[in-house]
C-alpha cells in the first residue's frame, strides 16, 4: 500500500470520521488496492470477518461497475469515508456518453444484498464533464438490531 495512505488511515482509529481518497486509472488490476483500503478502514472499525469479506466483494463490484463505464483516458476517483461505525465508498468516473446503471442487473442486485445501501447518479456538465458516480455504505454488523 502507498506509504502516504498510511497516516490517513491511522487517523481512523482515533477520530470519529476519516476520509481517504484514491485516484487511479480505471484498470481492474487496481481493485486489490481499493479492497485493501476498504479493509484497513473497516478493520479499524472492528468489523467482523464476514462483514469484512462482504465489504471487499462489494467494493470490487461497485468499482468494477464504475470502471466498466469509465472513459479509458480518465482517472477514477474513489472516496472512502468512515464514521458512525460505517464505511462509505463513492467511486466516480468521467464518462464519454451519458452513463446509466441497470438496477435490474445481477451485479447491482448482488451489491444491494451485500451493502446496507447503494446508489448511483449521473452528472452531466457539458460533454467534457460528464461523470458517473456509484456509492455504497456498510455498517459494522449486518445483524438485526
Amino acid at each position, binding site marked *: 500500500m502507498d506509504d502516504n495512505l498510511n497516516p490517513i488511515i491511522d487517523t481512523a482509529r482515533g477520530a470519529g470520521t476519516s476520509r481517504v481518497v484514491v485516484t487511479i486509472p480505471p484498470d481492474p488490476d487496481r481493485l486489490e488496492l481499493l479492497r485493501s483500503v476498504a479493509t484497513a478502514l473497516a478493520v479499524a472499525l*472492528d468489523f467482523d470477518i464476514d462483514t469484512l469479506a462482504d465489504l471487499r466483494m462489494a467494493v470490487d463490484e461497485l468499482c468494477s461497475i464504475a470502471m466498466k463505464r469509465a472513459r479509458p483516458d480518465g482517472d477514477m476517483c474513489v472516496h472512502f469515508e468512515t464514521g458512525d461505525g460505517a464505511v462509505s465508498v463513492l467511486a466516480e468516473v468521467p464518462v464519454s456518453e451519458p452513463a446509466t446503471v441497470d438496477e435490474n442487473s445481477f451485479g447491482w442486485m448482488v451489491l444491494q444484498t451485500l451493502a446496507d445501501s447503494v446508489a448511483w447518479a449521473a452528472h452531466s456538465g457539458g460533454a467534457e464533464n460528464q461523470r458517473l458516480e456509484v456509492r455504497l455504505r456498510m455498517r459494522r454488523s449486518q445483524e438485526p438490531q
Partner: protein
Amino acid sequence: MNERETLASTSDSLFAELAELGTEDPRRKEVRDRLVSLYLPVARRIAARFRGRREPVSDLEQVASIGLIKAVERFDPSRGVTFLAYAIPTMMGEVRRYFRDSAWSVRLPRRLSELHLALGEASRELAQQLGSAPTPRQLAEHLQITVAEVQEGLEAGESYRAISLDNALSEGPESPIDRLGDEDPGMDLVEVRASLRPALEMIPDRERRILKMRFFEHMTQTQIATQLGLSQMHVSRLLARTLRTLREHMSETPETADSSAASNARRSSDAHSSQNARKGLPG
C-alpha cells in the same frame, strides 16, 4: 411476464407448497430439489464470479450449490425478503468460507500460508465460542499477533482479480437475469470430472479436499497431514474411507461418463448433482 418474474412466482408457489408439508413428509425433499434446480443457474453465476482464482470453476459451482441447498433449507418466506436476497449472500458466504478454509489452494509464501491456516482454525474456534464471526481484533488476541498481521493473513487468501458480475453478465441487450440459464462455454467439464462429480458431491468437504491434494496435487499423506493439522494416520484413514465411498457410489450409478452425453446433458446433469449434493449434507 418476463423470466425473472416467472422464476419468482414458481419459487413462491414451491415455498408455499413446502410450508404446507409436515417436517417429516417425504415430499419435502422433492420440492426442495425442484427449488434447488430452479436456482442452480444463479449458483453457477456466483461461482463464475470467482473465476480467475486458482480453483476450478466446477468446484466453486459445487460449493455455491451447497450454499443454495442451505438457503433453500433455511429460507423463511414469512420474513418478507425474497429468496434471492436471502440466497445470494448465503451462496457467496459458502464460497468465501471455502476460500478461507483452503489455504492450500493458494501458492503463498510459507509464513503467509501458515498465518492463513491459523486464521482459518482460529475463526472456526472463535465463531463457535462467540456464536458469530470474530473480528480481526479478537483473532489477533486469540493468536497473540497484531491486528495488522491478521489483516495481512485474511487478504492473503483473497488475492484475485475480480470480474464484475455486471460486466460478466450484461453484455448484450437482454437483462442478465434473463440469461441465467444459458450455457457457459468456459465451464465444460472434462470427462473424468464429469463422471466423478456426482460422487464427489456426496463426500464431505474436508475429505474431498484431501482427495484432491493426494491425487490431483500429488502431495504425500504426511504433507497433507501437516498442512491440515491432522496426523498422517488420520489422513490415511480418511482417504481410504473416501475412496471406498467413491467406488461404491460409482459402481451403483448407472450414469456413464460418455463424453458426448456429458457435453449434451449439462442441464440434466446439474439437476442430478443437486440431488446428490443434498445427500452430502449433514443432517
